[in-house]
Each structure stands twice: as C-alpha cells, then as structure tokens.
C-alpha cells in the first residue's frame, strides 16, 4: 500500500511539473512550510483564521500612441437631477459575508515589494489604477486590459509603475513607461482567455533588480486544485495606494483560467496569483476579472508561459 501511494505521488509530481521559470528574491523573515500561505509582515493584521491558439497568442507590442485629451462628447447630455449614490458604511465585499483581505504593511520585504501599483494613462486621457509584478529587472506583468484598453483608444499612453507603494511612501521610487506587450488574442479578439500583457521599463530604470521578482510556472490542473493560491494587489476601495492580500484554494480550473473566492476589488487587475514552495514563489495566473460567484485569473498555460519567457528576456 505504501509503495502504491509513493508511486502515485511520484507519478502525479512528474505530470505536475510542466514548466517553471526561476524567481529572484529573498525573504526577510524565515518562511515555514505550512501549506502555501504567505507569512505576513509583523504589523499586518492577522484575522483569527488565516486561512489558445497560436494566432491568438501572437505577440504584439506598441510604443504608446500619443494624443491630446478629448473631452467626452456625452458630457453635456446628462440630466440635471443626478441620482444620489448611497453612502456605504463599510466597503462591499465581492464574495462571501466578510472582507478577508489583509493589509500588507510594511511592503518592503519580498515578495510584497515586487508587487507594484499602476497609474494608467489611457490614450484618451482617462486614468485607471491597476496592479503589476516583476518577472525580471524591467519586465512588469499585468492584465492585458491594463496595457491595451479597448474602449480608450487601445494602447495606454503611459503607465507609472510604483513598487511597494504604501500610502504616501514610495520606497523604491517609480518609473513611467510607454512600452507595452500583449497578444493578439487580447488586442484584436478581446478574448478574456488572452487577457495578459506586460510593461517594459526604460533601460535606465531597473527597479526589479532592487525588489526581486516572481518566478512563474505552468502547472497541472490537479496541482493547482490542491494548492492555496496567494493574491496581493492595490484595490480601489482602499484608495489604490495600499497593498492588500488574501489566499484561498481555487474553486475551479479551466485550460485558460483559474477561478477562486479570493476577495478582490477594482484596481487589483494584473495582480500575481502565486503559490509558495519553500521560500520560492511561482505565479500561475494573472488576476483579471471580478465576479460575485468567483473571481478569476488568466492561467499561465503553456503558450502564456512561453510568451512570458520572451518578455522576461526583453526586460533582463
């Protein structure tokens, strides 16, 4: 019986380990192996229970289009009497009766410092907030809809990347970039399964060399279902300037997505979804979507993994 179990474990493992790309970072605090939950900075609040196709995957990139801000034509078409929004005493939670997110404070230890607040300036002039994370000194992974905004003229005009933003503190400064990459499955087809992209920082701005970066991996369905997945980013309901974390096992896994009950809010698009193995962090998804019945990430499938390898090299 023991032999059989051992054999099954080995067999599962050999299927699980599909593709892995290395990380770079050190933990300030020792990390114990207890499932795959992250150990949080001392001052963070602990709750009682912490607990495609090849054409679509075609690499596309652009220097951001330049343009003047255009006042929206609809501006003058509103009714005079606007409905009054209701004041919300405590922020709504997307999934479940309680808000389980935990603030990361301070943000200067790894892996938190490798996660970045994004200030996105669209081609139209509109501003958005999102989240990104380093996979090399100058490559910041994020959602495709953070770099290519279909309703706002396509490629962003510029994005400011702020690693480890913590209130008014910018411990690593920030850099702006107008060089982006995504895939045609997103930019041409607007296919949710290909909603991922990256920001390439200028050669003079190697912020990731100071913060470290995440590894990433293409793992099997059974592996993903068995692991606690971590997600941390910059939610808009907290103003978009503080980092918040939550972790759960996934609800379901599809060939292109990972669905989970990890609490998120608008602004966390682009956040890393990762598992912890010893002191190693491997991203397996890029958070993109909210839904009351399950938030979701673009899964790092084989073609996504390959594309990320090439983008990583661009920002090495």
């Amino acid at each position, binding site marked *: 019986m023991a032999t059989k179990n051992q054999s099954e474990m080995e067999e599962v493992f050999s299927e699980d380990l599909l593709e892995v790309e290395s990380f770079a970072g050190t933990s300030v605090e020792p990390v114990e192996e207890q499932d795959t939950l992250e150990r949080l900075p001392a001052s963070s609040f602990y709750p009682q229970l912490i607990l495609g196709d090849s054409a679509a995957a075609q690499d596309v990139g652009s220097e951001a289009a330049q343009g003047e801000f255009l006042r*929206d034509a609809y501006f003058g078409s509103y009714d005079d009497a606007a409905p009054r929004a209701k004041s919300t005493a405590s922020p*709504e939670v*997307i999934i479940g009766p309680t808000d389980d997110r935990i603030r990361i404070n301070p943000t200067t230890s790894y892996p938190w410092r490798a996660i970045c607040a994004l200030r996105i300036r669209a081609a139209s*002039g509109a*501003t958005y*907030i999102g989240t990104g994370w380093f996979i090399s000194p100058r490559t910041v992974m994020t959602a495709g809809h953070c770099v290519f905004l279909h309703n706002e003229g396509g490629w962003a005009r510029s994005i400011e990347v702020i690693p480890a933003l913590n209130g008014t503190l910018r411990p690593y400064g920030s850099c702006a970039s107008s060089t982006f990459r995504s895939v045609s499955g997103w930019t041409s087809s607007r296919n949710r399964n290909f909603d991922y992209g990256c920001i390439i920082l200028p050669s003079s701005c190697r912020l990731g060399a100071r913060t470290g970066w995440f590894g990433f991996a293409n793992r099997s369905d059974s592996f993903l279902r068995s692991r606690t997945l971590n997600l941390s980013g910059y939610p*808009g309901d907290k103003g978009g300037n503080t980092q918040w974390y939550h972790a759960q096992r996934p609800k379901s896994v599809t060939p292109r997505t990972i669905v989970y009950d990890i609490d998120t809010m608008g*602004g966390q698009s682009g956040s890393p979804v990762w598992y912890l193995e010893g002191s190693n962090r491997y991203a397996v998804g890029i958070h993109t979507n909210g839904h*009351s019945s399950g938030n*979701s990430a673009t899964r790092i499938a084989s073609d996504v993994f390959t594309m990320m390898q090439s983008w990583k090299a661009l920002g090495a």
Partner: protein
Amino acid sequence: MQNHKIQGIVVNSFGQPVQGAVVYIVDGPGSFPDIAAVTSEDGSFHLGGLSKGAYQLQITLSDSTFTYDCMVDDPTEIVKIAVQDP
C-alpha cells in the same frame, strides 16, 4: 458580448465635477474587468468590457465609499452619480 460600457460623471452635492474619485464595479451579471477608473478633471470615468445587465458600482472618495446601482442596456450606458462631500 462584453462590449458594453458605462460612461459616467461623478458630481458633488453642488453638482460640481469631482476629480480623483475611484470608481469600480463590485457586482454584475457576469465576469467584469477588475480595473478601477479614476475620475478626471471634469468628473468623468469609463468602465468597459461589460455585458448587458444590472451592475453595482462603488465610488471611493477620500475615506468615504458610496454605492450606485445601474442597468446597462445600451452599448454605452450614461450615468451621472452625485456623492456627498466627505
């Protein structure tokens, strides 16, 4: 098809545009992009990639948060949201 969008403006109790409010979706009929818009100088914002149906928005301004319910029927749904000054 997720090609609908909400175009809106946030105003204060005096009807003046509110700049810098963070606007995002907290509930909807399907999956929606988890990005947040920041209102511009004229108080305007856009949230795209949506399907038809009922949505709940939240607006965070300083330390105050407001909710707003709207129905998206047209490809471009136009809303005007009044919030109380914090």
